[in-house]
């Protein structure tokens, strides 16, 4: 183990420069500014991931955010284990009927100010599962959504761009529900 650790001291870091925040996300968020809550989060965001019916493709790319290339924690963004600790719910999947209540309860358990990010095409409008007897549709059918990040699944860079836009928005005192 020592050899491996030592080698890493002399290897160049793999972490890549951050992508610019997504313009589309900035626009969607700017449009959302309403009742401005001016609470500053000190440039940090705690995210609680909620799979509301995804195929788990979106989760795979969410996991990738923590690898050395994207290293999401350097931006002060981290995944937390409880909605009670979260500022942001990152929701994936078409919301299934069987997950509706769990999503609502997770949302209600998250203290304000809070933001909801709908991740992936399914989270927007149900994606290719829309219209099924077992699916409600996009996340906004169940809880208010502040930002959509498109893709099937969105690449880690896309997710990062969206979250960085959210981080800037939050620090400027954007809407919080």
């Amino acid at each position: 183990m020592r050899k491996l650790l030592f080698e890493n001291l002399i290897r160049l870091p793999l972490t890549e420069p951050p992508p610019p925040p997504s313009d589309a996300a900035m626009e969607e968020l700017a449009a959302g500014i309403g009742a401005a809550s001016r609470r500053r989060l000190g440039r940090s965001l705690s995210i609680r991931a909620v799979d509301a019916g995804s195929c788990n493709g979106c989760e795979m790319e969410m996991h990738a955010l923590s690898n050395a290339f994207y290293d999401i924690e350097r931006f002060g963004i981290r995944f937390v284990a409880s909605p009670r600790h979260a500022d942001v719910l990152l929701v994936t999947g078409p919301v299934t009927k069987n997950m509706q209540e769990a999503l609502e309860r997770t949302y209600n358990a998250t203290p304000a100010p809070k933001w909801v990010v709908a991740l992936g095409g399914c989270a927007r409008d149900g994606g290719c599962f829309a219209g099924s007897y077992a699916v409600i549709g996009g996340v906004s059918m169940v809880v208010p959504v502040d930002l959509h990040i498109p893709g099937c699944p969105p690449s880690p860079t896309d997710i990062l761009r969206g979250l960085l836009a959210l981080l800037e928005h939050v620090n400027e005192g954007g809407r919080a529900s």
Partner: protein
Amino acid sequence: MPTLSDILKKGRSVPHHAPWPRAVVDAAVWTAAASTLPEGRLTLLDLWGEASAVHMALLDEPAGTTAVLSLEGLAGGGYPSVAQLHPPALRLERALRDLTRLEPRDLPDRRPWLDHGRWDLRRPLGERGIALPGVGPYAFLPAEGDGLHQIPVGPVHAGIIEPGHFRFTANGETVVRLEERLGYVHKGIEALMAGADLIRGAQLAGRTSGDSTVAYAYAFSQAVEAALGLVVPIRAVWLRALMAELERLANHLGDIGAICNDAAFPLMLAHCGVLRERVLRAADAAFGHRLMRDRIVPGGVTSDLNGDGAGGLRSLLAEIRRRFPALIELYDNTASLQDRTVGTGRLGAALAREYGAGGYVGRASGRAFDVRQVLRYPPYDSLVFDVPVLNDGDVNARVWIRIREIEQSLLLIEQIIDRLPMGPIFSGIPSVGERREGMALIEGFRGDILVWLRIAPGGGIERCHLRDPSWFQWPLLEAAIEGNIVADFPLCNKSFNCSYSGHDL
């Protein structure tokens, strides 16, 4: 002990079912076949229903073949339950009952499975009925005794994981019973399939379990091609296997890192995560999508491998070969890590065999089954590879199977790039004038994925059924955790890494 072909002779063979036979049998033959399952010559591969028919797919491993037995023309009276004779069928039959109107007679567990009482209709694949009002509580199995307490977990879990509910009954730290409740991510995929065209069918199949998007699209396409008698260009056949091996590589690397992380050793996660990311980037460069989604379609593949893509894959192989051995050594020589994985979550060989457990779950518990080797679908019939098998059945063995399979996948990828035939990558779908049925079994990273479908004249999908390997692995997790401490559950669970979405459909 009857062979599969003995049983098939007692039924009426169905025309236009390929590549393996399907026979309509009577209830007596059905029950006789089910009652031979515990003897172990035949393995239950799948069980599914339609409005008035049930089908059971069986594997005759010594003979290297499979077949489907069907009961047709069923009405209100239902059909004889398989689970009463062979427990691995239990959840399949509970799901079948939820989705069709058919009643498995003498089913030992009559609780619903996928239907949580929240859909706005009942029996979506049978004669649809209106939903019953109100959601009743789910009756978990009782566990009685002094000092027992229950720990409910989920459906929303603490990490970035799919939803499901786990009900632990523990005595102090020790788990005496785990009961799973699944179905939370049921999206109704099989009902969406009915009436869809083949293109949409392939998309839906590729979204059944995102981590196995290649394997599902592969299985779906192969089932369509079997049904239509379509011969796929040889280059596409090889490219499919290339994508499948890349998917296996990425997932196994991710799993090894995640298992070690759950044993509080994040260094492995960091290093495996880097290698996994390199695989996904090479896949993106070679095929235009990190997960290679929608790249396999009926008729062939949608993106070709060019010289740059192949070069990228070769340097990927070199990079993994340079870095991975040090990680294996690190895993093997870290006593604190071994302390957590060795002897933890042991699954016995008898259960693995009975449940026909596929993938690393089966192969870590002595079941040497790999579709690539047993059914030898092309191009694996002309590739050289080993199927690693271990007998310990613990978390450690499931890690080692993955390590060995990574090595095998590297060899396979190399052989494929070296010998990739030239030529077209797609051939058009012929239209046929009659009903056709097809089936495919593909080895995904998690185990064997089965797809069965019926195509209507004109090319629409009439019925498509997809069976994830997790159907037979989830129940075994309940067995493997027994007697372990609650704190080792994440470790055991990760070493199984069953799919929720693939199971819930």
